[in-house]
C-alpha cells in the first residue's frame, strides 16, 4: 500500500510571459514504511510538487489536473481546515532552512511543548517527551538546551531540532525538502544516518528531496528522477542507480563527481539548458540534450516498464518493453 499516491498531477504558475508549466502529468508513489527520494536539478519542480502535496502553494500557482491520494483519499478536494489539521500531525515537513520552522522569539522547549497542544499530557510530561525527542535526534544535553533560543544553536543543530519537532506528532509521512543541502558534508552524513535510524524506529514513510545523488543512494529505498517538470524515471535505488534506463539519469550519474574515479581534465557534463517551461517543446522533454535521440523522439514518450517496478519515460525503453 502506498501512503502517498500521486496521479497525473499538473501545476502551472501564472507569469507575465504566460503559464509556466512547472509540473506535467506527474505520477509517483511513496510506499508505506519506505524512504522515497526525489532527485533532479534546480528548477525541475521538486519544491512545487511538495507545495502541491501539502497545499501550501504560491498565490500564482494553479493545479491543472490530477490527484494527490494520501492514505487513499484525495487531498486536492479537502477543505483548507482539513488540510490545516493534517499538516504537522499526519504529514510533517522539514525544509532546507530550519528557521522557517522555528519561532525566533520562543525557546526551543516552549515550541516543542506548544506543538503537543492536541495531546492530553501534563506539561511536565510534554517537556519530558521534548527532551526525549531532542536526545533521539542527537542533541547533547537536551534538558538544558530546551531553555535556549533557536539562534543559540548551530545550523546543523537547528536542523536536528526541526526533525525532532516534525517527528513529535508521529506522522505517517515526513516530507523533507533538501534538509541537508545547506550543511557541511560531515554534518550531512550524521543527519542522514540519524534519519535512517529514526525511520526504522518510528516506522513512518519519508519523502526526501535532494539534488545529491550520493545522499539519495545512501538513504532511500526508492527514487523518482525528475527533469524539467516531469518524472523521467522511477524504481528502487538499486535498479535506477545500477541500471539507469533514462538517458537523463544516465548522464546525471556520469556527471556526479563521486562517480569519477580516474583523474581527468575533461569532466562529463550535460551540454545545453533546460527548456523554457512557458513554451514547451513538443516531443520528449529531454530531446535537445539527449545524445541518443532518434526519429520517434518528436512525439512525447510515456512511462514504459524497464523491469518489474522500474519505469522510464523514453521511447527506447518502450520499444524494448516486455509485452
Amino acid at each position, binding site marked *: 500500500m502506498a501512503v502517498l499516491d500521486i496521479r497525473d498531477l499538473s501545476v502551472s504558475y501564472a507569469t507575465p510571459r504566460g503559464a509556466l508549466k512547472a509540473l506535467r502529468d506527474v505520477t509517483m508513489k511513496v510506499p508505506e514504511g519506505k524512504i522515497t527520494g526525489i532527485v533532479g536539478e534546480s528548477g525541475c519542480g521538486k519544491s512545487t510538487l511538495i507545495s502541491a502535496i501539502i497545499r501550501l502553494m504560491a498565490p500564482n500557482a494553479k493545479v491543472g489536473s490530477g490527484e494527490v491520494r494520501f492514505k487513499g483519499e484525495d487531498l486536492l478536494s479537502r477543505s483548507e481546515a482539513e488540510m490545516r489539521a493534517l499538516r504537522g500531525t499526519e504529514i510533517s515537513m522539514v525544509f532546507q532552512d530550519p528557521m522557517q520552522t522555528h519561532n525566533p522569539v520562543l525557546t526551543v522547549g516552549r515550541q516543542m511543548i506548544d506543538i503537543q497542544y492536541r495531546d492530553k499530557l501534563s506539561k511536565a510530561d510534554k517537556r519530558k517527551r521534548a527532551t526525549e525527542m531532542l536526545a533521539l535526534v542527537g542533541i547533547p544535553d537536551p534538558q538544558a538546551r530546551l531553555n535556549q533560543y533557536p539562534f543559540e544553536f548551530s545550523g546543523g543543530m537547528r536542523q536536528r531540532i526541526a526533525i525532532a519537532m516534525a517527528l513529535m506528532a508521529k506522522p505517517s509521512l515526513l516530507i523533507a525538502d533538501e534538509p541537508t543541502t545547506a550543511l557541511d558534508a560531515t554534518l550531512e*552524513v550524521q543527519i542522514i544516518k540519524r534519519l535512517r535510524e529514526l525511520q526504522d524506529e518510528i516506522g513512518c514513510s519519508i519523502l526526501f528531496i535532494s539534488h545529491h*545523488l550520493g545522499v539519495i543512494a545512501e538513504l532511500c529505498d526508492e527514487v523518482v528522477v525528475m527533469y524539467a517538470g516531469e518524472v523521467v524515471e522511477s524504481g528502487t535505488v538499486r535498479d535506477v542507480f545500477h541500471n539507469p534506463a533514462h538517458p537523463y539519469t544516465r548522464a546525471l550519474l556520469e556527471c556526479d563527481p*563521486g*562517480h569519477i574515479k580516474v583523474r581527468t581534465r575533461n569532466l562529463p557534463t550535460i551540454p545545453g539548458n533546460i527548456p523554457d517551461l512557458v513554451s514547451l517543446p513538443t516531443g520528449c522533454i529531454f530531446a535537445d540534450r539527449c545524445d541518443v535521440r532518434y526519429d520517434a523522439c518528436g512525439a512525447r514518450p510515456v512511462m514504459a516498464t524497464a523491469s518489474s517496478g522500474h519505469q522510464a519515460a523514453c521511447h527506447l525503453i518502450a520499444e524494448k518493453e516486455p509485452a
Partner: protein
Amino acid sequence: MSALLQIRDVFVRFRLRGGIFSSVGTIDAVTGVSLDIEEGKTYGIVGESGSGKTTLARAVAGLHHASEGSILYRGQELRDLPEAEFRELRREIVMMFQDPIGSLSPRLTIKSLITEPFRIQGMGDRDLDTEAKRLLTMVGLPAEFAARYPYQISGGQARRVGVARALALDPKLLIADEPTAGLDVSIQGEMLNLLARLQDEMGLAIMIITHNLNVVRHITDTVGIMYMGKLVEEGPTEEVFARPQHPYTLALLAANPEPDPDAQLMRVELSGEPPSILRRPKGCEFHTRCPFVQPRCSTDVPVWTAAGEGAHRCHFPEIWTREEAVAS
C-alpha cells in the same frame, strides 16, 4: 626556482565587537598557514564552512590585513603593502568571488561587467568591444552576450562571465572562491573544465577554494585541508585521495557518498560539531570530533610533520589503516 606565491605562518585576526554586554575581543580566523603555489599550478584549499578559507584568500588578495607572517608574490612582500602599490598587482593577482555576477550591478551589461577591470586599471582607452568579444569567446559564450544583462543569462553562464571578467587582464594568479558552489552537477564539470583549459592555455596559477573535496580531485596538483584556521594536511592530490594521513581528511572523503547503494563505505562519522574558534580545544584541535582520538591527543599539540610527499598535523597519521582503530 622559488614558488610564485609563498605564504608563511600567516595569521589573520578580526577584532570582534560583541553586544553591549560583551567585551571587545579578537577572532583568529587563520592561525599560522604556510603554503606554496607554483607558477602554472593549481592548489586546492578544502575545508568546511568557517575554517578560514575565504579569509586566507582575501589576505592574499590584499583585502584583509594579515596580522603576522609573510605573503611573498614573486619574492615581493604583500603584507602591509600600501593599497596604491597593491593596485598595480591586481592585474596579476585576481580574486573571483563566490557569486561573481550576483554581487555586481544588475544594471550593467555583460560587456561593461567584463571590461570593467580595464577601466579600473586606467586602460579604458582600449577597444572594449573587441576585448569583450575576445573574453566571451575565451569562456565559450557567444559574442552577442555582450549586450545582455545579468538577469537574461543562466546561472552557469553567469559563472562563465565571472571567469571572463577575472581573466580580462591576463593575470598570473587566479584565486577562485567556491567557483562551483550552488551549481547543478551537470554544469559543475563545465566550470572546472573551463578553468583547466584556461590554465593550460594561459599558464595561470590557480588557488581554488572549496568545501567539496570531490571538486578539486581532477583539477588540482596539490591540496591543503583546513580545519579551524590551520592546514591539517597537505600533499599531491593523488596521494591525499589514495592515502589520507589525517582523520579529518578521511572524514571529508567519506562524507561524499558515491551514487551507488552498494558502494563499500568507509564510514567515518565525526562526533559533534566544530567547536567555536573562540574556545579552541587544547592539544589537537580536532580531538573533540576525531573518531580515533587517543589520550595524548587532548593534551599534546601535534606539530606539522612531513610524510611522503606531503605533510600533516596528527600524532597518529594513517591511524584508520590500523585494524584496532577501525574496529573501535
